[in-house]
């Protein structure tokens, strides 16, 4: 295929950034499209025609397709944009907790969203910093314009998927004020959120997943080893892959990203596949509104994830693992990149892992602002340099996943559980909790709770007990969004529900990704529900009709109901919402569309909105 490229030339800075990130492979490397676009964004702040053409030329990707990819992701801009942008969370966890006030203050100081040549601001979906609202993600391009004449300097600074320092000068601020945001937009250094502060149980007894948070230095391999790190991998290598897969199966570990699929089933399928090439993927694209547990794990204990991925990769016979980390998580990305580089330097990754003769290495890839990429097959498309559109299943990833090869894809929390299972054995893990719900579980408490943060409790703990840990059942509690925007609301009379897959299902709810977002009776639920509906309308990939159009119609109908402007009366509007709900739930391609009506449905059933 001959590429037809637009005549626009890339600037020296754009070319240097792309070259540093992806070089000149000489053949099609579509999988480097996102790293290349990130490099351009990180260097100059937007993707020009010349830059896109240059990327296409390097990677042998048709420009129309590359443009389709660039315009899919919210963190990429194909029109000129200020090189320093503050993404301000106005999602359900932040809006009423300072987010809307912050938006108003920034609008006053900086003008409308998107305006401004040097600095600007924009609204954002949940940034995963809900325990310290309001949250801001700073997308800051670097180097600045003065380096444009010096390609070597640009090269040195530009990002590379293989370096241990990420590109750009991105940062998170939470809680944010207009003043801190403006100073950070002017280039001032920002202290990232301290994950230990977000872990009220840190250093306490009876922790497994969070046991090293605040105990180990996340940048120091020795500190991790001193806390028992890499004992799991050593044991896994000693007992052999088949035994490790068995232990995971016996443990009855289920996926912690929201879908709760049995992990052992995935591992056994890939381990048993005759296909010589296999992959392990870690889904660190945590974007479910209200969720921040994986961020805390990665920031505070990155070696644990690297070790767990190594155990998993070797157990299922993969030589390469991909870690797809959310683009709005620069601190987590930095921590992981540092840990990967350290592990590699000390022989914990590479051609001969811990002298075992087994090869395994990791590549870290950065997402670019798309909730849908948390869906496993959309994430794989994104890794391959495609639009993050979910694939039809079957075939399932264990049969044809990343690059068409058998792939195990697991969430961060799921993988970190592996270390404990390898150390203690599957039966010990399975003895905690009940039924399919075994082990401990992380919950993300935010909203009107006294001590918001990540909490670890054994499966089966009740919602009331969990709230007690966070300072007690909030006074005047009206509803809890359980499981995220794709979950549902529960009410104060349901606090004795045991937090298990089975227990939550019994009351028509879900554990989801562990979101426990609390609202009191002062809450404007109409605003909350409209934000959730708007979220799904924004984040739908647009591939299938039920979700692409259904999310729009759901948001419109909800707007009419809360404004008292129903067409043909309340009953008819509720029927319309139910009809849209059913087609999205029944006929959407993926979980996004299938759960896009869940929170609205439960809010209507509980009378949180639409009361007349």
């Amino acid at each position, binding site marked *: 295929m001959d590429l037809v490229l637009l005549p626009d030339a890339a600037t020296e800075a754009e070319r240097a950034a792309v070259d540093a990130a992806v070089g000149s492979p000489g053949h099609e490397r579509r999988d480097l499209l996102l790293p290349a676009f990130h490099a351009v964004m990180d260097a100059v702040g937007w993707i020009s025609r010349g830059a896109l053409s240059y990327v296409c030329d390097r990677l042998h990707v048709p420009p*129309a397709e590359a443009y389709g990819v660039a315009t899919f992701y919210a963190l990429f801009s194909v029109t000129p944009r200020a090189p320093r942008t503050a993404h301000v969370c106005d999602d359900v966890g932040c809006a009423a907790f300072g987010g809307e006030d912050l938006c108003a203050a920034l609008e006053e100081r900086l003008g409308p969203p998107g305006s401004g040549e040097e600095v600007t601001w924009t609204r954002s979906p949940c940034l995963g910093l809900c325990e310290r609202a309001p949250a801001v993600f700073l997308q800051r391009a670097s180097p600045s314009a003065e380096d444009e004449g010096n390609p070597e300097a640009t090269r040195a600074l530009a990002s590379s998927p293989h370096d241990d320092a990420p590109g750009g000068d991105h940062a998170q601020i939470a809680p944010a004020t207009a003043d801190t945001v403006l100073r950070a937009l002017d280039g001032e250094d920002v202290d990232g959120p301290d994950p230990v502060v977000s872990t009220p149980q840190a250093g306490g007894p009876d922790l497994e997943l969070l046991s090293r948070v605040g105990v180990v230095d996340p940048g120091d391999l020795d500190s991790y080893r001193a806390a028992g790190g890499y004992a799991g991998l050593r044991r896994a290598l000693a007992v052999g892959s088949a035994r490790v897969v068995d232990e995971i199966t016996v443990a009855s570990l289920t996926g912690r990203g929201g879908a709760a699929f049995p992990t052992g089933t995935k591992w056994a399928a890939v381990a048993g596949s005759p296909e010589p090439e296999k992959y392990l993927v870690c889904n660190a694209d945590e974007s479910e509104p209200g969720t921040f547990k994986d961020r805390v794990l990665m920031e505070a204990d990155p070696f644990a994830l690297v070790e767990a991925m190594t155990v998993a990769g070797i157990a299922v016979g993969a030589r390469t693992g991909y870690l797809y980390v959310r683009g709005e998580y620069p601190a987590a990305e930095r921590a992981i990149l540092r840990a990967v580089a350290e592990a590699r330097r000390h022989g914990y990754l590479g051609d001969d892992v811990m002298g075992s003769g087994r090869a395994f290495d990791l590549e870290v890839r950065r997402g670019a602002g798309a909730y849908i990429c948390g869906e496993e097959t959309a994430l794989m498309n994104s890794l391959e340099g495609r639009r993050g559109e979910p694939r039809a299943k079957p075939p399932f990833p264990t049969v044809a996943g990343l690059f068409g090869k058998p792939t195990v894809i697991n969430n961060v929390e799921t993988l970190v559980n592996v270390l404990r299972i390898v150390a203690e054995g599957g039966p010990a893990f399975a003895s905690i909790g009940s039924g399919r719900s075994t082990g401990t579980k992380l919950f993300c408490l935010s909203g009107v709770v006294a001590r918001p943060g990540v909490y670890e409790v054994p499966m089966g703990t009740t919602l009331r007990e969990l709230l007690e840990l966070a300072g007690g059942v909030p006074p005047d509690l009206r509803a809890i969004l359980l499981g995220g925007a794709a979950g549902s609301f529960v009410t104060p009379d349901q606090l004795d529900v045991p937090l298990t897959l089975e227990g939550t299902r019994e009351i028509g709810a879900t554990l989801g990704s562990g979101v426990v977002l609390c609202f009191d009776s002062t809450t404007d639920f109409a605003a909350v529900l409209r934000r959730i509906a708007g979220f799904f309308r924004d984040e739908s990939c*647009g591939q299938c*009709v039920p979700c692409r*159009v259904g999310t729009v119609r759901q948001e419109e109908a909800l707007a009419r109901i809360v404004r008292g402007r129903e067409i043909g009366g309340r009953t008819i509007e509720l029927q319309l919402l139910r009809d849209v709900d059913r087609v999205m739930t029944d006929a959407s391609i993926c979980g996004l569309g299938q759960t896009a009506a869940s929170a609205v449905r439960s809010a209507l059933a509980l009378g949180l909105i639409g009361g007349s």
Partner: protein
Amino acid sequence: MTTVDLGTIRRLVSVTVDDVEHRAPEGATIMDVLDDAGADTPRLCQAPNLTPVNACRVCVVEVEGSRPLVPSCARKVEDGMVVRTDTERVAHSRKMVLELLASANDLSEAGDDVARWQIEYGADPERYGPPGPPAAAGERGNRHAGHHGIPDGETRATVAQPVTVDNDLYVRDYARCILCYKCVEACGTDAQNTFAIAVAGRGFDATISTEFAVPLPDSACVYCGNCIGVCPTGALKSVAEHERREAGTWDPEGETVTTTVCSFCGVGCSLELHVQDNTIVNVTSPSDHSVTHGHLCIKGRFGFQHVQNVASPGEH
């Protein structure tokens, strides 16, 4: 000696559809089985000469063991599979897909089948309120992923926008585009391998676009017109057809079709000349033709002017 290609010998599997057992070759889709049984299964993004993308979801059926409905166009049959098409759930989803599309798109040129399914399934797009104002030219392609204006619900959002005419051969009327991906597939690996267009943007704001929405003459487009050939809704059509429709002289009832073989090269593509008022208005090729699979090149599809160059009085 004449050889007869028997194809790959495929095992037969047993599939039950609405309590009736069918035998189908392994690798067939559920839709193949339904078609063989004579069922009228609605479809929009499916085409016999393209890889299924199962995006429109109008062909969904129930499959025992699957919680969500299953796209019959893409799902391959398995031995012992139990399929239902006669349930209220299936009817509801099909109706809603047709209704949601009609609420956002102009389906007036989507053909008789779509019009019939709209009535048969009871689609009622008007219940979402009056349509909102159309977008200005190019505006829909410039929306940033993840951001949209908050609606008040007084009107329903649509994809209405002006027709794009940027070349002499065909127009792009994206108010009719249902994002079935067919044109992208035909431009890409399913036929032409030109990759001039792709889906850009996200969600309801997704569009079919060249890079930076540049006009087709600035893109990789080679004007094979295969995108027109597969478009199910009239979003892509020849300038000749567009102009006649605009002038009110488009006359599908009076159209005749003449089959011939393309004379431009030695490949031997089968052509169907669509003639209205003694003038060729479109050229197509049958999708089951062994050479073309329905796809043509610029010469076959648009190089017919010499056939009808009638000398004006006084010319020689």
